[in-house]
């Protein structure tokens, strides 16, 4: 009974789990109100990321490109940033926040984005936009470092460090959610509301799920404000739910302003949600109310209907964002399932020191493998060639063909989930997320039993 942590053996990537840093930085930036990022690089770095978001959310998001062409790649392209900022500000009068997100090309050619921001602050912004609040923020996101995960982490820190400013204590809690869905934010806010905790949520992305309005005014964008970000320096504490997506910002606030922080655990499942509430209580002193005892009880009731009859012993592979994967694995174990394979898809060398990974290594009572720097070929190869038996796959849509071609049922979870309808509306965190996840897994297994005629009659009496 061992849990082995290994590295992918191949040097390259076959069927990646993640895209690169600029995408993560772009995801963070769309969470801010009156913010349009400029990605400094080739146009594909924006066009495809916007497409990816639109696939996942079925919504449009505004992100600009500095459109670096051949001449810029040869002679430097900072003039493209200057022009992009001006064009963007002229045509979008409400824009106040403009992150300048670098990419591999502009990092390789060595464009000094910090320098050009200084120049623009002293020049263009004073000359042409003197009566307007505009923040240009450098986000260094070279694609050859980390992944979308670290890109998100870097961007959140860049925003917080740009805006956070010490003044009067606000009594508010900073909640840094990490890379989640609108449905998750709704649930987290409900939990905090039950505890009567006033929180600054980074980022307020519930508004990504935007309506079609009769007056055509519907639009998808984040709603975290400059004031929200500024006020993070005056909070009573910071709760960063994900270690690798927002952890940096929490540490920054602690080091710079002495804001006590708790990083993790990702509140997936009952136990981690309990810990989340415990942490909220620790930072705010607010008690956990009876209403949450009841909500928790409903979730446990739902899980009790499923665990030992249907979910126990089910062998699961999980891939995606590290905090999500670890949280899901922990929850699966509580559900009596066996997460036999975890795939973490970038070269972050600190994952192996994550206390949660250490705990899995010392605690699991079945054969488990954790592959670092993984790709989806690691999953497919084990199923096809190494007799890995799976009852279920948990992961995002890019791995859909591994499930389809190998006849393994799959629950779409994480980002992106474009091949299923509306998953961004559903939570995976909190007690509500625990219910959704367990029931989605059960229903997926049930459908598969029926499709394969595998003891489908068992559901006659339940």
């Amino acid at each position, binding site marked *: 009974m061992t849990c082995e942590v290994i590295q992918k053996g191949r*040097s*390259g*990537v*076959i*069927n*990646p789990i*993640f*895209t*690169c*840093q*600029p*995408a993560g930085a772009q995801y963070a930036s769309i969470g801010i109100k009156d913010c*349009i990022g*400029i990605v400094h*690089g*080739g*146009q*594909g*770095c924006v*066009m*495809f*990321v916007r*497409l*990816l978001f*639109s*696939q996942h959310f*079925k919504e*449009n998001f505004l992100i*600009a*490109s*500095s*459109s670096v*062409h051949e001449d810029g*790649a040869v002679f430097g392209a900072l003039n493209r940033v200057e*022009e*992009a900022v*001006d*064009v*963007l500000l*002229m*045509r979008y009068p409400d824009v106040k926040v403009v992150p300048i997100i670098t990419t*591999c*090309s502009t990092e*390789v*050619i060595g464009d000094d984005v910090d320098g050009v921001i200084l120049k623009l602050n002293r020049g263009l912004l004073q000359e042409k936009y003197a009566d307007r609040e505009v923040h240009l923020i450098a986000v260094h996101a070279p*694609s*050859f470092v980390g*992944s979308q995960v670290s890109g998100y982490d870097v961007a959140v820190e860049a925003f917080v460090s740009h805006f956070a400013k010490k003044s009067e204590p606000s009594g508010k809690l900073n909640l840094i959610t990490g890379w989640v869905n609108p449905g998750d934010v709704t649930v987290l806010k409900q939990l905090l509301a039950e505890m009567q905790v006033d929180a600054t949520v980074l980022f307020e992305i519930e508004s990504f799920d935007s309506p079609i*309005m*009769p*007056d*055509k005014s519907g639009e998808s964008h984040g709603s975290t404000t400059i004031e929200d970000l500024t006020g993070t320096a005056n909070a009573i504490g910071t709760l960063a739910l994900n270690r690798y997506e927002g952890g940096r910002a929490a540490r920054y606030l602690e080091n710079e302003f002495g804001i006590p922080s708790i990083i993790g655990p990702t509140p997936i499942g009952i136990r981690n949600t309990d810990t989340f509430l415990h942490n909220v209580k620790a930072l705010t002193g607010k008690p956990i109310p009876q209403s949450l005892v009841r909500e928790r009880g409903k979730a446990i009731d739902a899980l009790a209907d499923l665990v030992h009859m249907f979910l126990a012993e089910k062998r699961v592979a999980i891939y995606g964002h590290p905090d999500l994967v670890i949280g899901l694995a922990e929850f699966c174990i509580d559900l009596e399932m066996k997460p036999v394979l975890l795939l973490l898809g970038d*070269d972050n060398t600190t994952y192996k020191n994550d206390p949660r990974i250490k705990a899995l290594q010392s605690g699991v009572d079945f054969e488990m493998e954790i592959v670092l720097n993984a790709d989806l*070929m690691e999953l497919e*190869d084990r199923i096809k060639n190494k007799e890995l038996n799976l009852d279920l796959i948990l992961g995002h*849509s*890019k791995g*859909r*063909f591994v499930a389809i*071609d190998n006849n393994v049922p799959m629950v779409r979870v994480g980002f992106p989930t474009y091949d299923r309808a509306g998953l961004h509306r559903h939570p995976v965190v909190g007690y509500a997320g625990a219910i959704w996840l367990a029931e989605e897994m059960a229903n997926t297994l049930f459908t598969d039993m029926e499709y394969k005629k595998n003891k489908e009659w068992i559901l006659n009496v339940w």
Partner: protein
Amino acid sequence: MPFHEFNCSTCIPERREHAVVKGPGEDLTSALPLGYLNTIPGSISERGCAYCGAKHVIGTPMKDVIHLSHGPVGCTYDTWQTKRYISDNDNFQLKNTFASDVKEKHIVFGAEGLLKKNIIEAFQAFPEIKRMTIYSTCATALIGDDIGAIAQEVMEEMPDVDIFVCNSPGFAGPSQSGGHHKINIAWVNNKVGTVEPKITSDYVINYVGEYNIQGDQEVMIDYFKRMGIQVLSTFTGNGSYDDLRAMHRAHLNVLECARSAEYICNELRVRYGIPRLDIDGFGFEPLSASLRKIGLFFGIEDRAQAIIDAETARWKPELDWYKERLKGKKVCLWPGGSKLWHWANVIHEEMGVEVVSLYTKFGHQGDMEKGIARCEQGALAIDDPNELEGLEAMEKLKPDVIFTGKRPGEVAKKIRVPYLNAHAYHNGPYKGYEGWVRFARDIYNAIYSPIHQLSALDISKDEIPADKGFITRRMLSDIHLTPEIRDSSEMRQYTGGYDSVSPLRERDYPYMNESKALV
């Protein structure tokens, strides 16, 4: 010059010559926007990059190939599973994508060693695949990796594999079109002429500029085979790498998307004397004329005519059913490049819709010439549109539907304009006779969607029509039709199935057997 100035773009004067209205008395010598120029930074254009033009648009539809991108992982991930170019080998190239995963240390010390390891690993992972394409990206082009040399090294060490290298980094040109050009020229320079094909028919063509979106290629190949024509290669949808190395042996290049693939046809004409015939696979009349021309070329026009007659008889009554209900509906034809001219006239003639605007994301002035020539008076033509201009145009023109990409479709949705995916289609294929009816059906379903109707109602102040539990599309579409048309027994709605392509893969072709027997 009848330029159209957008209110949202008065502050960027460079945009002034990128939009025109084809007014009365205007022709191409007075109404043509600028095109294929550098994008204005920060304008929120819809353009992609030259890497995607090479790898994603043209390279990857090749089906029996490992498509490896040399660079950080993002380029590969981003151009994976965002298209609907299927293939008859279980979609190998859709499912699998390969990145050399360049990291910081490789940027500093070079990534050629990493690339070589990658190539070998990829062939090991898929031992049945012996062909590979490698695409440079911004990062590896800038550090100056010699991909060609590495590929050559591997080919010498592994004699059973063949590798094609395309150097088309993202920054190489104003849009994805730069990549179309680079991969065309690289292929004709490096791969054409390196395989001698088995010729099994007296009638041999290359089918060029066709990417098998939802099975378009397979629909057209079906017609060609029914005529007894050997399709030596398709560039590149559902195409085979080695077939494409043998392009030089065709008698005729049949060109569909001239935007992305005219370069290779031009080079094949100059270098090998193969003539270029531009065709339209969309629409009954243009398709019929195209099949007839190909038939005439080989002296088998009777075979073409038999197909035209049979297909027209089968599907025309269904097309006409939709035409009666789509007449006068306003369309923004906002695709990437070639569809603006493939569709501009024929959707007007055969479906009765009015094209009120056309745009091109990455097209050149040549595409606009064709598009503007083919649309009716009054249409607004926009080169390299941006987000605000698109919104302003829709507000002004009030289209009933727009044909565009997935993400711009989401923009239209919010201002209550339904969209059809012009690149990937909704429920295609759209080529061929049946495909054209499927397109008409999709347009009809979009325009007369009861849900879109509901989106206009403001329940807080409008009178709520509480007398109905449902509305059918026909209650909306048939209201102004005469009884003869409404109840016509000649015309009917689409009667095909959900999947119109897979059955084609099982077909038998008498003329093909005949020509094989001759050999």
